[in-house]
């Protein structure tokens, strides 16, 4: 019985080679793939047909909630909970509320951006199979990796490895679970 593996990984020297390899793998029919690079490569999202990030929506909702929280908190405190007449000024003195409303909007939006980012990336994730490839430590330095995962219907240990070999990688290795 063969041991199950996570996938097959190819290592490339340049961002261009990685983008090409990702395109070829998509063209070949592979769908469960991911690319790893030390810095963002714009063409990769398009090559891998990644969905548009949902982060802007999350941040918008966070910002609106923050603004409402800021304004309603001040309204509640100054009008309902603790009304004080200061020199005849109206209790609902909305111009004075603008600043805290603005600050709370920014605060909630920024918090949702960061927690949204972590959630969308699935972080924190202390263990991931790709770290089992010893050379993967270079993915944060100067090497570019393409991984075809074993869950892909087209995945076959021999055929996928041979296919990755045709893309002129520096090395092809198995990713253990």
């Amino acid at each position, binding site marked *: 019985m063969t041991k199950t593996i996570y996938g097959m990984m190819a290592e490339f020297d340049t961002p261009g080679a990685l983008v090409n390899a*990702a395109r070829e793998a998509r063209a070949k029919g592979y769908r469960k793939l*991911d*690319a*790893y*690079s*030390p*810095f*963002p*490569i714009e063409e*990769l*999202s398009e090559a*891998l047909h*990644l969905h548009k*990030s949902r*982060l*802007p929506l999350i*941040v918008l909702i966070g*910002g609106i909630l923050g603004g409402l929280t*800021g304004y309603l*908190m*001040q309204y509640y*405190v*100054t009008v309902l*909970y*603790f009304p*004080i007449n*200061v020199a005849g*000024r109206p209790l609902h*003195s909305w111009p*004075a*509320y603008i*600043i*805290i409303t*603005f*600050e*709370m909007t*920014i*605060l909630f*939006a*920024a*918090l949702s*951006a*960061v927690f*949204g*980012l*972590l959630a*969308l*990336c699935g*972080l*924190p*994730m*202390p263990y*991931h199979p*790709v*770290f089992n490839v010893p050379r993967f*430590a270079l*993915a*944060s*330095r*100067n090497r570019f990796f393409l991984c075809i995962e074993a869950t892909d219907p087209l995945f076959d240990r021999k055929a996928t490895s041979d296919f990755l070999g045709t893309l002129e990688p520096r090395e092809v290795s198995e990713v253990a679970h």
Partner: protein
Amino acid sequence: MPDEQDLLQAEPPKREIIGTGYTFGTVTDQIASVVLTKRTPLFWFASFAVGFGLLLVFLWSVVLLLAKGVGIWGIRMPVAWGFAITNFVWWIGIGHAGTLISAILLLLNQQWRNSINRFAEAMTLFAVASAGMFPLLHLGRPWLFYWLFPYPNSMAVQPNFRSPLVWDVFAVSTYATVSLLFWFVGLLPDLATLRDRSTHRLPRFLYGILAMGWRGSARHWASHEVASLLLAGLATPLVLSVHTVVSFDFTIAIVPGWHSTFFPPYFVAGAIYSGFAMVLVLAIPLRKVYGLEGLITLRHLQNSAKVLLATGLIVAYSYVMEQFMAWYGGNT
């Protein structure tokens, strides 16, 4: 006689941001070695000693302040403002350059910022932490600082949301939080690099915890890029608003000579001016001591100097206009 073409190529191309001869690998190695090196340079110990000495002066001053009260600042004069608020404004201003570099220059697509943004953001964090000390200390009873927040309490009182001092609480705590978040989001891939580069177990474990399992996957990067842009878009109005709110501390009251619509832009320009000066104060020794001349090049220093010149001119104009307004308005 050397060929004309050779001479032309000996000069680095004008648009080049970092020195010639760098590859992805050598840039990573050089920056990581600053953190992971076994030999801490003498310069570090010397600067640490100076910083620690100043910290002790601060602690001694705080003890004196708590023992004797805020009267030691000579704040009984009704027109001049106190020692605490000038320190507060100064430190917040220093911090603003970090946010400007990380947020505004990112939105303006100024790529030279990438060499200096991380340390400028770290500078912002420390500056905001220092700034936060002064409003707390000027409270007189700093251990009751939480009374500034609206929370349900047995005294059944609440802060006055029409007061600029309460606006300050929200502005500065939001600014500190957002600066920290922005810094951390930018740092996440760097921490992953340090995790992969470190050779000992303990640093690898610690950087591993902080990097949260960042793998540099295309999906990660796509979200990371969006998050950076969004945070920059949020931090840009924030940085302008924070110093505006700080200037409101002075202008919202009707004290003659201080009650002026002119203060917010004046304060923001002054903040960026002093902050960029601090970036240069930190960058020039750093690039020398850690041999980073190839990454923080003369071009960075030149660009920072241009920002200094522009904001310096705005501040000079503001000084003149401040006097003019006081004279013209009879508000003296």
